[in-house]
């Protein structure tokens, strides 16, 4: 069942000239799904989320909850629960009063209210904190109160705008597990905004990768990682080498490209790649899908090491192949490898993938 739909949604701010903060975005999110908007700073994630919450109205396009058109519905009638980046807890109310705010507006009875507040605080491990003042809580606790306040109204959709960005690294990892657990227990649809790709990968059912107001790709984490749609996505999610290689022949879902050493190889490509013989294809290959070998191994590309960095588990190298720097993350490298060495690069051809510019 589809819960939230954005149809060709665009947002232009009056004072920001002609550029759209959000440009023709199509997204549909299933009920119960954990959906993440991921992208670099300023790409329009917050703007998109705020249109779903009703704080901005789209310049064009439609937003639906289920089958209802909510494009211009005011925020207080949308039944979403939002967790703000700075938590936005009411400083003049206690923890319990904060959590009770939405219930009061919904005219939930006293007993029922008390029960649900207790339940929500329990869910976020803050049972017994109801009487605390907000400024008596740590950052992590405040974050959880914000979550409880949004959850207690049993919103149809939970909206989270970088809720972890004010926490330290360790707490951030713990909390993201918690948020995911609570969301799954409650069965609520969640739209989560972050610029942290590892957070997105770890938590999400699906991710929409955004760049300058546009959605570049929507998919499950593995899919986005292994089959990035564009060079931007390939580089933004993890690390990637995007090689420009000449197309020799092109078929439906495979493109054969020429390698710098004169050999050819077939690379998997999306069905709509649109490439023809003679074009230049962009081929993404991740550093961990490249291996070091001797220059003499058949099928290995010859190159020269220009950087070596030992990190413990893997060794990160930069190898120059036909004048192009290629990043390599190798688990197993010969001892004593140094800058200037001539090496062979072994390609994991199954993991190579054609991307769009």
């Amino acid at each position, binding site marked *: 069942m589809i819960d939230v739909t954005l149809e060709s949604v665009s947002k232009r701010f009056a004072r920001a000239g002609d550029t759209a903060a959000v440009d023709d975005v199509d997204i549909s999110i299933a009920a119960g799904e954990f959906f993440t908007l991921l992208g670099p700073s300023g790409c329009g994630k917050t703007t998109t989320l705020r249109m779903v919450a009703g704080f901005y109205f789209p310049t064009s396009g439609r937003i639906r909850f289920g089958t209802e058109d909510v494009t211009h519905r005011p925020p207080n009638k949308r039944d979403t629960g939002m967790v*703000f980046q700075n938590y936005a807890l*009411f400083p003049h109310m206690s923890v319990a009063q904060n959590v009770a705010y939405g219930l009061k507006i919904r005219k939930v009875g006293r007993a029922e209210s008390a029960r649900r507040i207790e339940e929500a605080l329990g869910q976020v491990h803050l049972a017994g904190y109801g009487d605390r003042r907000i400024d008596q809580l740590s950052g992590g606790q405040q974050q959880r109160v914000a979550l409880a306040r949004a959850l207690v109204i049993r919103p149809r959709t939970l909206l989270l705008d970088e809720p972890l960005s004010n926490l330290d690294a360790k707490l951030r990892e713990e909390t993201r597990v918690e948020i995911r657990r609570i969301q799954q227990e409650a069965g609520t649809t969640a739209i989560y905004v972050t610029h942290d790709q590892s957070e997105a990968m770890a938590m999400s059912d699906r991710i929409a990768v955004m760049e300058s107001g546009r959605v570049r790709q929507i998919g499950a984490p593995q899919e986005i990682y292994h089959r990035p749609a564009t060079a931007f996505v390939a580089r933004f999610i993890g690390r990637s080498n995007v090689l420009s290689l000449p197309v020799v022949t092109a078929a439906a879902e495979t493109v054969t490209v020429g390698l710098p050493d004169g050999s050819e190889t077939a690379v998997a490509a999306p069905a709509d790649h649109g490439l023809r013989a003679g074009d230049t294809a962009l081929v993404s290959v991740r550093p961990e899908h490249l291996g070091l070998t001797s220059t003499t191994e058949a099928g290995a590309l010859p190159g020269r090491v220009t950087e070596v960095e030992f990190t413990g588990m893997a060794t990160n190298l930069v190898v120059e192949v036909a004048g192009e720097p290629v990043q390599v993350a190798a688990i197993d490298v010969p001892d004593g490898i140094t800058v200037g060495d001539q090496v062979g690069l072994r390609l994991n051809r199954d993991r190579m993938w054609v991307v769009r510019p």
Partner: protein
Amino acid sequence: MSTIPATPSAATVPPVTQDPAPPPAARPRRGLNANSPWFPYLLVFPLALILFGYVVQPMFATFAESVGVDGVANYTEFVTGSGVARSALLTSLGISAASVLLCGIVGVAMAFLLKRFSFPGRRLIEAIILVPAALPPLIGAISFQLLYSETGILPRGLQQLLGTENPVLPFTGIAGVLVVHTFTMYPFFYLAASAALVGMDPSVEEAAYNLGASRVRVWRTVLLPMLTPALVSASLLVFMTSLASYTAPLLFGVDRTMTMQIYINRTNGDLPMASTYASVLAVASVLFLLGMRWYEGRRSYRSQSKGVASHRREITNPFGKWLALLASVLATMVLLAPVATIALVAFSRDGSWTTEVIPSEYTTANFVTIFSDPGAYRPILNSLQMSLLATVGCVVVGVLIAYAVRRLDFRGRGLLDVAVMLAWALPGTVVAINLISAFSTGNAFSFGQVLIGTFWIMPLAYFVRFLPLVFRSSSATLAQIDPSLEEAARNLGAPWWRAFGTVTLRLMLPGVLAGALLAFVNGVGEFVASVLIYTSETAPISVEINNRMYSFEVGTAAAYGMLQVVLIFVVMVFSGRLQNGGRATREAAKWTA
């Protein structure tokens, strides 16, 4: 539970509904939708109308009045005439320039002494430094008259002490006006310079010394340039406030000033000429306001260096120590003398004080009179009632304008801001003349009623004069409140008005209350506009004080004055509590002068 995505395919997911031609986007049909682009206009329109009707439009009415009879002839008198108009303008400008100079010297010197040195009595002086400036304008000026004029306590005391024929060192005429201005307006410099000095990174100064600069050179090349922005703002404020000053020239009998000419022409029934003076002053105020905004806008680009607050220098020289102590005692006496004088005189028998240094007969009868004689406590009731009414108006309108200016996005936002501040920049006399010109006939903004000669003109004048106080104070508090708090309330289901009331307004309350109290005490102390528009039924306390002074009932006048003073200090202590750390007192000083 399964949370497997419903449409796990690559690239973007097609929209679910496949209407070939989607219907036009549904618009909200009913109710106040705070997110729609026209919501701000709905809220702002009545506010803009109020500002236009009671601040801007009356200003134009005054201008129309000034050219209504003789065309521009009234104005040419300022340029060519050898008469009163020209000399009044020049005197006003001269007094203002001299006030800037005197206040600058006193204010900056005080700031340096108190912020840079440590000596006995420093804390006490810092605590009471704003007392003279916080007095209501009329009672403040009266206290200086009682202290320093020809018949004042100090010149007569010195006369008796030295056995001379005449009072020694009396301040009269323009000199008297300058004394009042210096005492009541130096806080503009003191506060600005203190803030700059406290915010200044001492290492900058130390670096200069370290590089071998002499003390004079450090002053000239480092300290003064860093103080410049503060000094420029303070100069503008003092100049404008002096130009608007009315009570000091009134009490020291300097008739040829702009404000006095407004009053004199108005009482002589020459409204066109009074309006001419008022228009000239209004133009000066507008120019001043725009200059101020321009300068502060420019200033905001230079950030002040943050750092540890500058450390104070201990005075170690024993001679210097004694000198400092003596100066502290003297300063304390000078600062407290005005209030002490009013308190003393309030207990003197009316008519008993003639040529003595201080009154000879004391009684509590004055206080009994003002509280028991119906005719005598009428002004108190008037003041409280009119001020309360005005304050209610100021709170409602001021809070909403602050909200609109700070939180809403609409065309003409800057204009709204300027209109409120215009009400602040206009001298009280000008506000009164504006209202007289606008409402001596019926008008859409008075619902067709003539307001002159009625009760309503008084609270209206107070409203116009003190609206900016509530606006400023509310706006400053609002700036501290994260807008996402209101959004969170909206998200949890609260309609706009409920989110505003339970979250934003609730959190603004300390600032609103402080502003309201300030507006209220200013209303109770108001004299400058009142004296032009009161009727015998609506005379407020200050007008009554003035009338009693004229009939030599100095004791009773001072008793009324004590009431105002006590009210002010009670309110100040209270708002100091409200906004921790005496900020309210500082704000108050900014506005009371």
